[in-house]
């Protein structure tokens, strides 16, 4: 630590000698969404430096799974970057420690107008906006056209009953019906899809665990029967989201619920795969999960003005369109939404149309603990270690220990 600080000091001194004008170096931490992420931000940095001579943007790409830990250690050591991408659901922890600069003072009405209204909301805490929505996604049901046509649902199942019926047909033909995620990030969310579409909820408005409900027991039992009857892939607790997506790309599974960026992956890796995208099946209603990642400005940054200028730049039309197109996310600004690439893209529109009924992860303390407790509950049920009732009761107790503390 000491040594890097020293070296940094020497480097800063050298730079100060070399460049007579005031030159800011803005450090930006971005998450690795795909192979395109790093090159995209490098390009933006270069363009920004060209338009603003003397200022430099330094990009650091971090794997998503390691991002929070990296920020945690960087911040503890006071060595964090000026700007970072974070999961919007982590925001509260940062705000509670007063680490992030509220952006309201920087945003004029015209800047706010650039965004699609719903997307500024998730990063708002107590009336202040702490992050800008850099990436947004929702979830839909991908189905393999050939397998579902053979099963009698050429346009995908509309309800959970139809999904089970389709999976039974696919199983009878020797295939895997509905992919169930049993490992890794969003194992909990994979169950929330059916919980929400049966009228259940994860956390009640007063901030208590709400998933241990009749809808909760019913939907977890539904998943359990799908697993037990072999209507899913075998060994579900060995499959994280990427594994499920791989099965789908290889045509080895009929249906999978996941995010819009799978469209880009399929187009690149298996362009011949025939597939469709349908809303998450309905129970009593239709519902989905929407996620945003935010880009935030740290309070201890010494180059806030330049950092904001860079943020302002990447949230103008062309840079946004280029980013969202390359990563396969959903538009968060009006300029993107109006671009022909998005208006003419039927598959992406399916996701966009789901947004009005979408649940966002709430910004409350204890969300990660709840996710972990529910993930454990789901895993214990899939493994046959506990009944849905017992597992949910245990998870409820654990979640309530952490929620709103």
């Amino acid at each position, binding site marked *: 630590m000491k040594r890097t600080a020293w070296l940094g000091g020497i480097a800063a001194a050298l730079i100060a000698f070399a460049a007579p004008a005031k030159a800011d170096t803005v450090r930006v931490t971005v998450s690795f969404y795909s192979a395109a992420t790093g090159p995209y931000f490098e390009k933006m940095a270069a363009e920004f430096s060209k338009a603003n001579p003397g200022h430099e943007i330094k990009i650091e790409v971090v794997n998503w799974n390691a991002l*929070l*830990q990296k920020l*945690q250690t960087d*911040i*503890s050591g006071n060595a964090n970057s000026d700007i970072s991408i974070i999961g919007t659901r982590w925001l509260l*922890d*940062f705000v*509670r*420690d007063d*680490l992030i600069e509220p952006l309201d003072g920087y945003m004029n009405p015209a800047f706010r107008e650039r965004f699609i209204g719903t997307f500024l909301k998730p990063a708002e805490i107590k009336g202040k906006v702490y992050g800008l929505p850099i990436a947004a996604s929702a979830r839909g049901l991908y189905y393999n056209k050939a397998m579902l046509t053979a099963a009698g649902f050429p346009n995908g199942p509309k309800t959970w009953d139809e999904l089970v019926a389709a999976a039974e047909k696919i199983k009878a033909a020797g295939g895997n019906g509905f992919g169930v995620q*049993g*490992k*890794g990030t969003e194992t909990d969310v994979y169950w929330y899809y059916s919980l929400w579409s049966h009228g259940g909820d994860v956390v009640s408005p007063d901030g208590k665990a709400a998933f241990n409900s009749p809808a909760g027991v019913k939907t977890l039992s539904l998943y359990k029967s799908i697993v037990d009857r072999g209507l899913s892939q*075998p*060994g*579900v*607790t*060995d499959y994280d989201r990427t594994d499920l997506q791989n*099965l789908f790309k290889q045509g*080895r599974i009929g249906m999978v619920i996941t995010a819009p960026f799978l469209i880009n992956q399929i187009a690149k890796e298996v362009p011949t795969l025939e597939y469709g995208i349908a809303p998450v099946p309905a129970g009593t209603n239709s519902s989905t999960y929407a996620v945003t990642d935010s880009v935030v400005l740290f309070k201890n940054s010494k180059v806030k003005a330049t950092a904001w200028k860079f943020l302002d730049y990447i949230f103008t039309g062309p840079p946004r369109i280029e980013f969202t197109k390359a990563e396969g996310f959903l538009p968060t600004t009006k300029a993107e939404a109006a671009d022909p690439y998005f208006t003419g893209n039927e598959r992406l529109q399916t996701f966009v149309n789901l947004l009005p009924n979408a649940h966002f992860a709430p910004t409350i303390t204890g969300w*990660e*603990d709840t996710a*972990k407790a529910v*993930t*454990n509950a789901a*895993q*214990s049920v*899939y*493994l046959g*270690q506990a009944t849905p009732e017992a597992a949910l009761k245990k998870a409820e107790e654990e979640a309530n220990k*952490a929620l709103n503390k």
Partner: protein
Amino acid sequence: MIAPSLLLAAFVMCYPFYEIVKLSMHEVSRFGMLRAFTGTANFASVLADATFQASLWRTLIWTFFVVGGTLVISIPAAVVLNLDFAGRGIARAIVMLPWSVSLSMASIVWLWSFNADYGMVNAILQSLGLISRGVPWMARPETAFPIEIAVGVIVSIPFTTTILLGGLSSIPGDIYEAARIDGAGAFQQFRALTLPLLRSFINIAVILNVIHVFNSFPIIWIMTQGGPNEGTHILITYLYDLAFRLGRPGPAAAISLIMLAIVFVFTFVYLRMQARERT
């Protein structure tokens, strides 16, 4: 004369220890900010935590089987590699090779090997006709944890064999000659000469391996992250989960102090036991 370096060493060792003790006695935010002094509350909550208890027990199983398995394989391996035979250099190199691969990389390779859909292990079993469809090895703790132990053994063999080979080369050859003249067979020679003379080296191997394996993070973290349903957590992976996933450095610091105490007590007791046996 040695005071400055002694001071530096003391600082390097004491400062992190002081920080961990401080963290363990406070309520700490995810980003390391101290909130309230809580005394022993973190320790109490950790000790009452069912996952902690299960992980502690699993850590003991993990350490025992990895270190035990390593010794059971390494002692004969070292004895064989100490014999003079054609190609001994190559054989030694092969045993040492896994050492040159980083632990993380070795874990990733084994994880792939046990993949349910494209793993080498399932492919072999299938081609032998032993199974009809791929076994999801990592899906259940009952299969995943023994596999992790086996990987732990494999990566610990080179180091242990090296220590034991060093020990074997220090045993003079003529005592075996004397034993042969007295009519001792190969097994008797091994029991009466090799093992006792190797004892201090085995002790070193046990202590170093226990300390290392007890704190070994990459294998389990890479292969299962302690899951499914917390079924493969050992203390170090649970500690990491608490600190970095749930953002609770306080209880995590408490666990690390408990781990330190366990290793310390083990080393002390083991050395005392060995000393007593010898007298």
